[in-house]
Structure formats: C-alpha cells, structure tokens
C-alpha cells in the first residue's frame, strides 16, 4: 500500500468514524439507526473496491482485474460451501437472527447485487477515459466480465447445492476445497509453478510465453485470504463456524485494512464486531473512543512504517549488500537494521490496519507484542505475527500433536511429539512465505531453537531450579535472555532475507569473523 492509498483509507474511515460518533448523539435515534444500517454496506463496498485498487499491476493483460475478481469468486464459493451449518453449529451458536440472515434470500441477493454492481462499475471505467481506471490497467471488456461473473455465480450455486444436499457431502466438500486452496497456494508460492501459471495465463492472453515469470502473478493478499478461507472451511467442518451472511463473509475475508498484511482474524470474532457495534446508551462514548484509539494506532503505525522502517530499509541487509559488506561489525549493523526494519514495517502496517478497523468499530486482533523483548523463543513466537502463529497452532500443531499422542500404534515419547509438532509447524510457517530452501531453513532454524528451549525448560524444571529471582541477578539474567533470544531471531533473518543458501553461509562466516 502506498502512502496515498493509506491516507485515503484513513480519511474515509475517519470521516465515517466521526459521522458515526455524531450520529450516536442524535436524540431522535434516526441518524444512529442509519449509521448502523449503512456501516456493514460501507465496509463491504470499501473492501470490494480496495481489492481492485490495491492490486498491483502485472504484465499479463487484465490480470490486475481478474485476480481481485477471482478473490471475490473464491470467497463466494467458500460462502456457498459453508453456508449450511454443520450439526454442531446450531448448538454452539444461538444467534438465531444471524442464522436467519445467512439464509435470507433477499439480503443475499442484495449483497450479490452490490458486489456485482461494484465490479461492473469498475469494469465500466474502461469506457470512460476521465474515470479510468481504478485498476492499474484498463479493465477487460464488459462482456468478458459478465461471462466470468455468470461462471462464478453458476459455480457458487452448484457448490451451494452440493453442500446442502447432505451433511456427509458437506464434509467431503470442505476437505476438497481446503485441498484446492492449498494447491493454489503452493502454485503461487513455488517459483517454477508460478512461472508455469504465468505461462498458461500468457498463452490465454496471447502474450509471449518466453517472458513468463513468477512475479507476473502477484495476487493481492492471497496468503492471508487463503488462510482465512481455510480457517472457515475447517471450522465449518468441525461445526465451529457461526452462520454468516454473504455480506458478513465477504467483509470478513476481504476487510480492506487487512488485505496487504493481515492480521488473520477469526470469523466468529470478526462477526461479533460486525453485529455488536451499537451497544445502547454507551454507543456515543464508545464511538468517540474508537475514533481516538483508531487515530492513535494509525499515527503510530505510519510513524513506524514511513519514518522508521523506510529509513532503516536504506541500510537493511539485502542480497546485494550482503555480498559487498567487508567487515564483521558492519555486517551486524546491516543485520540489526534488517531485523528492526522488518518489525517496524510489519507492525506498522498492522497498527494502521487495526486503527482503520477501529474507526469502523472492528477490533482486529493484535499481531505483535514487543517480540524483541522476549526472554525466550517460545515467548517470541507468542508475540511475533501472532495471528499466523495462532492459525498454525489451531489447524496444524494442536491436531497433529493430539493425533500423535492418541495414535494407537505409535509409542512416541513427549519429546519426540514436541519435536515433530514444532518442526513441521515452523517448516510450514517458513514455507508460507514462499516454497524455497531459504524459507524452509528459516523455519528449521526456529524449530531447532524452539525444541532446544523446550528441552531446556523441561530440564530446568526437572532440577527444580524454578523461575529466575526478582532481584538484580534475576533481572540481569532476564536481560541476557532477551539479548540472546533477539540475536537468535536476528541470525535467523539471514536465512529469511538471502535467497541463496551459499550466500547465507558466507554471511554467517562474516558475522563471526570469517
């Protein structure tokens, strides 16, 4: 997201937040009711528009239009698949109004019309030079857009029917869709496969296949969107997903502040904010607080991102300067700059997303909690990219370790279970960033660190050494632990930032005086 885009989003959200705060004071209650009514539609519309506006340009013709459309198509498909609640859902979620809304044809149709209308309007800018274009390049022919939307609608209806036919069929469908999403995810994160996708798309558009490159297919926010969709499919399969209307579902998946850099919220938490925005008499003060807190977070986030992170970016370690650095101390400086740049960049974006969300009354989850001030790696991972770590905990680590513990034939000891669980989780978190050796090694680095810490903690406990004292010695030990943990994490970034393993090893040698 550029500064201009952020400023426009912030201005829009601030305008809404301020008007909503004023509306809450209206003694007749009419304005308040209007604000309540308009808010979900505004959030939906802004999110749909943002999908197109934030999408970066690609050399493949019209792809910057088709990718956001595909996001909406996929989201519609997943909603159709998860619309019918699994049996356990009804007993867990007693919001009958929401369940009714999820099945209300009129609201669904209206939502679909709003989405299609926005897409059509964006596509129509092709024909009005003065307005063209919200997308980075001129949108495709309106006829092609209409055909694509009809295909999407057909698929959604078919999947909806399949999902509604039987409960067993629904489980099968959830699993198939998760696999399909993972397949798409892998295809987009593996350079040779992405290049292949680019070649196919280039063939379809009649462009030169020899120019195909992985960077051709830059799908805005797909990493986050895919994980939100997998989350709803898994929760649906487990009967934990609340009934969501199409409007709520699309807004959850594509909520515009979270498109570029998360956080990965949970659907049941997000819809609570969507539905419970106006809580009676306290609404006015709550909205003023939302505006104040939202603005505070946005300003902090912008300072982190544009003042600190972008300045550190000038000197942060990268594949070019890693090969040029001549002396050990300066190699450490570049590495520190990278570590802090990454943190301030990512957490700055998160602050902005949380702030903008707050202006709309949505309390998005925190993603960072002073991660570089944690005294061990386990606590680091409880405070760094928390929503991603929680996602993997919920959908991989916990089910896997549970399965390993309860497997009849296996007789694994707890240490082995922890090792398998942590290794595979960290490896997958690494590969989430891209299917490459360096990300896999970064994951393995952290897996090793977590396992060693786990065993060390078990060893300390077994000796009865207990927690560090609160005196100066304890504080000094804590400070030392923070320094060690930070350096372990910082050294891990070497794998993360350098795509070539040989170059990473050379830099390690340089960092330690080689």
């Amino acid at each position, binding site marked *: 997201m550029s500064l201009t885009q952020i400023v426009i989003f912030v201005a829009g959200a601030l305008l809404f937040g301020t008007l909503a705060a004023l509306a809450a004071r209206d003694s007749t209650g009419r304005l308040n009711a209007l604000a309540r009514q308009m808010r979900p539609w505004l959030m939906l519309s802004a999110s749909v528009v943002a999908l197109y506006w934030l999408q970066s340009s690609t050399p493949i013709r019209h792809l910057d239009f088709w990718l956001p459309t595909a996001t909406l198509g996929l989201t519609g498909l997943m909603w159709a698949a998860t619309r019918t609640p699994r049996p356990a859902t009804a007993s867990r979620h007693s919001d009958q109004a929401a369940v009714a809304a999820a099945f209300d044809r009129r609201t669904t149709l209206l939502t679909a019309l709003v989405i299609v209308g926005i897409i059509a309007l964006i596509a129509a800018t092709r024909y009005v030079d003065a307005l063209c274009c919200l997308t980075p390049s001129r949108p495709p022919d309106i006829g092609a857009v209409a055909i694509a939307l009809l295909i999407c609608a057909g698929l959604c209806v078919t999947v909806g029917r399949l999902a509604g036919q039987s409960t067993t069929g629904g489980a099968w469908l959830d699993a198939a869709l998760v696999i399909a999403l993972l397949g798409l995810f892998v295809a987009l994160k593996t350079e040779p496969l992405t290049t292949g996708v680019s070649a196919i798309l280039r063939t379809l558009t009649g462009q030169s296949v020899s120019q195909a490159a992985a960077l051709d297919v830059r799908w805005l926010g797909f990493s986050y969107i895919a994980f939100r969709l997998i989350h709803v499919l898994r929760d649906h399969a487990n009967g934990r997903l609340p009934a969501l209307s199409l409007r709520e579902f699309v807004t959850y998946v594509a909520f515009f502040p979270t498109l570029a850099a998360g956080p990965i919220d949970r659907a049941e938490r997000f819809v609570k904010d969507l539905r419970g925005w106006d809580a009676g008499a306290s609404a006015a003060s709550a909205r003023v607080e939302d505006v104040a807190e939202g603005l505070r977070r946005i300003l902090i986030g912008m300072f982190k991102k544009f003042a600190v992170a972008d300045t550190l970016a000038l000197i942060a370690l990268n594949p070019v300067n890693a090969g*040029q650095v001549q002396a050990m101390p300066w190699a450490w400086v570049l590495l520190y700059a990278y570590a802090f740049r990454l943190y301030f960049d990512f957490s700055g974006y998160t602050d902005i997303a949380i702030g903008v969300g707050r202006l709309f009354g949505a309390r998005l989850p925190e993603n960072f909690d002073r991660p570089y001030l944690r005294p061990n790696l386990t606590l680091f991972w409880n405070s760094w990219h928390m929503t991603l770590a929680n996602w993997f905990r919920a959908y991989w680590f916990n089910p896997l370790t549970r399965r390993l513990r309860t497997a009849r034939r296996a007789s694994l000891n707890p240490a082995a279970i922890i090792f398998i669980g942590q290794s595979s989780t960290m490896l997958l978190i690494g590969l989430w960033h891209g299917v490459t050796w360096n990300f896999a090694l970064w994951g393995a680095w952290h897996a090793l660190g977590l396992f060693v810490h786990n065993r060390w903690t078990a060893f300390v406990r077994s000796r009865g050494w207990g927690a560090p004292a609160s005196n100066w010695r304890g504080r000094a030990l804590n400070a030392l632990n923070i320094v060690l943990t930070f350096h372990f994490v910082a050294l891990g970034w070497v794998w993360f930032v350098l795509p070539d393993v040989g170059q990473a090893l050379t830099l390690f040698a340089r960092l330690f005086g080689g």
Partner: protein
Amino acid sequence: MSSVSTRRIVIKALLLFVAVNAVFALTDPLPTIGSLSGYNVVFPGRPRLPYSDFPDRAYNLSLYTLNALFASHEIAAGPKPAGEYRVLLIGDSSVWGFLLRPQDTLAARINAMRPTLADGRIVRAYNLGYPIMSVTKDLLLLQQAMRYQPDLIVWLVTLESLPAGRQLLHPIVQNNAAAVRALIADYGLPLDPADARLLTPSLMERTLIGQRRNLADVIRLQMYGVLWAATGIDQDYPDYEPAAIDLEADDSFHDLKPPALRAEDLALDVLRAGHQLAGNIPILIVNEPILISNGQNSDIRYNFFYPRWAYDQYRIIMAGAAQRQGWRYLDLWDLVPLTEFTNSAVHLTPRGSALLAERIAQHIAAGD
C-alpha cells in the same frame, strides 16, 4: 476520552504544527542540521563529495545542502595535520572520478605518489570535484572549502564548464541561490542575480513541510554512511558505452558557430573571482585532458563535446587570460591517449587518471 479533551488535543496539535513550521521557515536550520554528521566520527569520511542518481546502488546521493556535503567529506575529519601540504582539487566529474573506484581518482592517485615539498611537507590532495560542468559551481564549493585551510587549489577546467550562458543550469547552483547571489555581488560576476533559474523559496517552501525533501536527503546521506563504511562503495558502476570516436559532421558548439569564440562567451570572471576568493592561497588552473578522436569527422571535431575551432580558440583565450592575469596555468589537454577515456570525452580510466596525477603531482612538488 471526552469530546472536550479531544478538541483540545486537536487544537494543540494544530498550533504545535503551525509553530514548528513557522520557526523552521524563519530560522532555516537546515544548514546547521546538515553540518551535524556521523561521518568522520561513526563512519569514515567520504573521499569525494556525495553525488549519485542511483542512491540504492551507489549508497550515495545528490543533495543541495552544502554543509551536509562537506560534513560528510574526509576533509572535515579534523584540524589540518602538521606537515600536511593541503591541496584541494576542484572541477567536474573527471576530478570527482566518474566510473572510477575511490582509489583511482585523481586525488587518490596523487596521494598514492606521496609527493613531498622541498620543506618536507607531504602533499595531501582532497577530491572536491563535483560531477557538474560549471565553474560557478566550482566557485560555490571553493567558498565552502576555504575554511579547511588549503595550501594550494588545483582547479581543473574545460571548455564545457565555461560557457557564460550555462553557469546557472545546474540544480546545486539553482538551489543555493542566496550563496550564488552573494558571490555575484561580492565579486561583480556578470551573472544576473534576478535570474529566474536561481530558486528563491517562498515562505511555505521554507517550512518544515516545504523542506521535507531536503531534510530527508540529509538524513539519507547519514544512513548511507553505514553502507559506505560497510562496503566502501560510493558509486554505481554500470556497463557503459565508450565515448564516441566517430563523430557527426557538425561544427557547432551549443549555440555558437564558427569562426570566432569570444572571451565574453566564457565565464572567465568566475576564474578571476576564484583567485580573489582564495586570496594568498595559490591556485593552479589546469585545462583538463580531453579525448582526441581519430575517427570519422575527427577533422571537424575533437570529440562529442568540442568542434576543433571552438576548442582551439578556447585554449588560446585561456592561455592569454592566464598570462594577462598572472594565473598559474597548465594546459594538459592532449596528455591522455584516446584509449584511456571511458564513457565521455573527459572521463578517464584508472591509467588515464594516473597519467594526469603524475603530471599534476610533479607541478605541485616543484612548486611551479
């Protein structure tokens, strides 16, 4: 948070914003900020003034705050050491060392020879070249450099840096309008102080918001100090097209046509002002080497820059002016062979730079 306190916060923030901007506009703290530098303290001083169009590859950038430029240079490291004979080299990109590693520039090559004067002082040359062809720019930098106690100034010039009409074309001159106007007034230069190319910032442009780009450049220069220290790189070295040998059959020089180049067409007054500015410090003016083509139409032109008629007349004018004014003048126009130029008619290869350095060092050591 009550609405009253919110209002107060907003009003206070606005007042603070206006006050900070107003103070910035009135006090113009940028030169002071520019002189605060981590160079020569945290990271080594740069051996040449900051300049680059590709900061992310060169770890260097072009900026207009003169104090920041000099504060990042190794010449600002501290007082002049005893026993040092300090020589300032000023001139264009050939002095700065375009496409040359720091160890291959003219100044570095002179220093590598360790020339020693008869009184035992060791010559230490400082590269204050700047990749822009304008003697007015040289004068501007010389004025800044005088505080560093030079013993000799070597001023390399070429015809392209002298056309009177082209003195104010360059951004570093235009963005230091007040200093340039002062030079015009102090030395009676035949330049128009009201020339529209000299940029006078409005009140808004002098505020913190208006000066944000210049301020950011000063900060970026400090940040790039880290990468300069870490890598020793201060320039991007792209593959380049060698300077043209086969030339157009065109005998024009800018808007001038043969047969005559007049002394008034050249900014010789700026060279005279330089001597006045330097006072007792001697100046050696060097007509820098140029590429002498032997290719197509080389009977019409020496190189891409110069038609033969204009350059020949320039040399006569320069020699005459030096004689009349009593300037120390060294004409090394044909010193460097054709093969020792890189991408332009004045940019030298490391060997070309060494050749030039040898001749200049001889003159310095001999005290000619």
